[in-house]
């Protein structure tokens, strides 16, 4: 972590150790947000309008899954880890499943690999759509939010038809999947994928031309390639500066090595780049699903394995919508694991998010934090300390959102140099 670039010499001395300012100045606050997202919070240190330091505190949803996994049968853990996250639930169970499968002598049937790919990509489309909607919400563009979440329903309908549930699909099993693709769904899926790709292109146009989005996202949240690499950012957070980091390409799993796949990277290195990147990825996902559905091989969907997993250790990684998911499992040859370690992409992207915030203004905070596509409602409550005025206050997510919208209101945007360039 770099030393603070503060102009205030006393502040520079204090923050050199990153943590030396007095914690009595920062008021920790209850992180319950009325919109029901997971409660987390941040403390931000400001100098006037600019963010100087951010301290995360993410223990509010800590449940103790890794400990619980040690006392539960292997297969039970699959459905527990699925509930780590509502949005990347399938890929969690997939990554855990893959790590355990390799310890056995059994192989995953081809048809199961293709079905896993289809569900994983459906999840990705859903996640990216949800995220684009949230970006619209935080930027004050409610229409975008409502339209995108409407499209999201078509994805959830397909998921529900295949798996029986909208969110926790429980489709994975060791060495296979639990349910087959329903008959006669191919045409419907292909049609819906075409529709969603069209919508993604339309939203792409909107974010490239709509004033609200342009102002809030262009040149905001910039990071260099070197910083991103050193901070171990994953997924879209690495690809938005041009790094070719995508597990589906680098270390293919499921059926990704058999299906034509093109990685999406961008060079802008700002939040607008992230928007373009995720929408482009969405289009790639629709192509992947279309191909997989048309080339689905025949055969079994599952190989049953005994409840005792041979001793050994193995790790697996998958590309969740938010980035690389990593699981490490260790077996001592029993019915329960000795150790399961699960690392979600949001934890990997958090240092990058904190770095992105430095130098940004208060009004950019909601957009920048949402940009990493966090798996926690990070803006529920935030406390602020302005070291120039010694003012301290706390805001709810809604207050912060309104501040950002007002700051970038239409009256100011007419003078925006960015818009003068793009809309002369």
């Amino acid at each position, binding site marked *: 972590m770099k030393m603070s670039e503060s102009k205030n010499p006393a502040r520079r001395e204090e923050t050199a150790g990153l943590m030396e300012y007095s914690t009595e100045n920062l008021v920790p606050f*209850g992180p319950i947000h009325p919109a029901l997202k997971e409660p987390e919070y941040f403390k931000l240190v400001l100098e006037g309008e600019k963010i100087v330091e951010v301290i995360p505190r993410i223990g509010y949803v800590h449940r103790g899954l890794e400990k619980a996994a040690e006392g539960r049968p292997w297969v039970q853990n699959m459905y527990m880890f699925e509930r780590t996250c509502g949005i990347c639930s399938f890929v969690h169970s997939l990554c855990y499943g893959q790590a355990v499968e390799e310890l056995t002598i059994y192989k995953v049937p081809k048809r199961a690999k293709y079905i896993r790919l289809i569900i994983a990509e459906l999840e990705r489309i859903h996640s990216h759509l949800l995220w684009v909607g949230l970006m619209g919400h935080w930027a004050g563009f409610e229409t975008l939010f409502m339209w995108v979440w409407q499209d999201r329903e078509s994805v959830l309908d397909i998921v529900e038809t295949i798996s029986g549930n909208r969110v926790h699909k429980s489709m994975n099993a060791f060495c296979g999947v639990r349910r087959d693709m329903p008959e006669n769904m191919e045409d419907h899926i292909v049609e819906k994928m075409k529709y969603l790709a069209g919508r993604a292109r339309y939203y792409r146009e909107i974010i490239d031309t709509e004033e609200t989005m342009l102002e809030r996202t262009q040149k905001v949240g910039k990071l260099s390639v070197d910083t991103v690499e050193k901070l171990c950012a994953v997924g879209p957070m690495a690809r938005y500066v041009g790094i070719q980091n995508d597990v589906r390409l680098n270390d293919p799993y499921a059926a990704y090595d058999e299906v034509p796949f093109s990685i999406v990277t961008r060079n802008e290195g700002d939040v607008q780049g992230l928007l373009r990147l995720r929408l482009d990825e969405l289009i790639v996902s629709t192509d992947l699903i279309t191909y997989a559905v048309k080339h689905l091989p025949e055969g079994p969907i599952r190989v049953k394995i005994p409840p005792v997993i041979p001793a050994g250790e193995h790790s697996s990684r998958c590309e969740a919508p938010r980035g690389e998911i990593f699981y490490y499992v260790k077996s001592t040859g029993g019915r329960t694991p000795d150790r399961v370690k699960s690392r979600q992409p949001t934890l990997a992207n958090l240092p990058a998010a904190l770095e992105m915030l430095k130098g940004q203004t208060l009004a950019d905070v909601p957009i920048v934090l949402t940009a990493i596509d966090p798996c926690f409602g990070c803006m529920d409550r935030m406390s602020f300390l302005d070291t120039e005025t010694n003012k301290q206050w706390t805001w709810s997510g809604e207050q912060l959102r309104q501040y950002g919208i007002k700051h970038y209101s239409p009256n100011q945007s007419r003078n925006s140099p960015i818009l003068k360039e793009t809309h002369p």
Partner: protein
Amino acid sequence: MASLTPTYDIERFGAVLVPSPRHADVLIVTGTVNAQTKDRLRKVYEQIPEPKHVIALGACAAAGGVFKGCYNVGQGVQDVIPVDMFVPGCPPRPEAIMYGVLKLLGEAK
């Protein structure tokens, strides 16, 4: 949150999301109660003016769900604050959530 969106649209029944507990009539709690959130949940509940109701959404809020027994997970929301309605599911469907909310409001009348 899907209940807010056009397909389900809970607003047509008169339910609206508010930014502060002081403006609320109903508190909907999702997810597990853990050591970190226990006291904060109680504080939020105390801030809501009477008459107030609580809905515990999902298996985790009701009894810990799939995380029951984990070292940082409590037994359920009713251990911390009184609950008027449980909506089961993991997660509950938006229709189930709306049904729960409306049933509660119907009984409250």
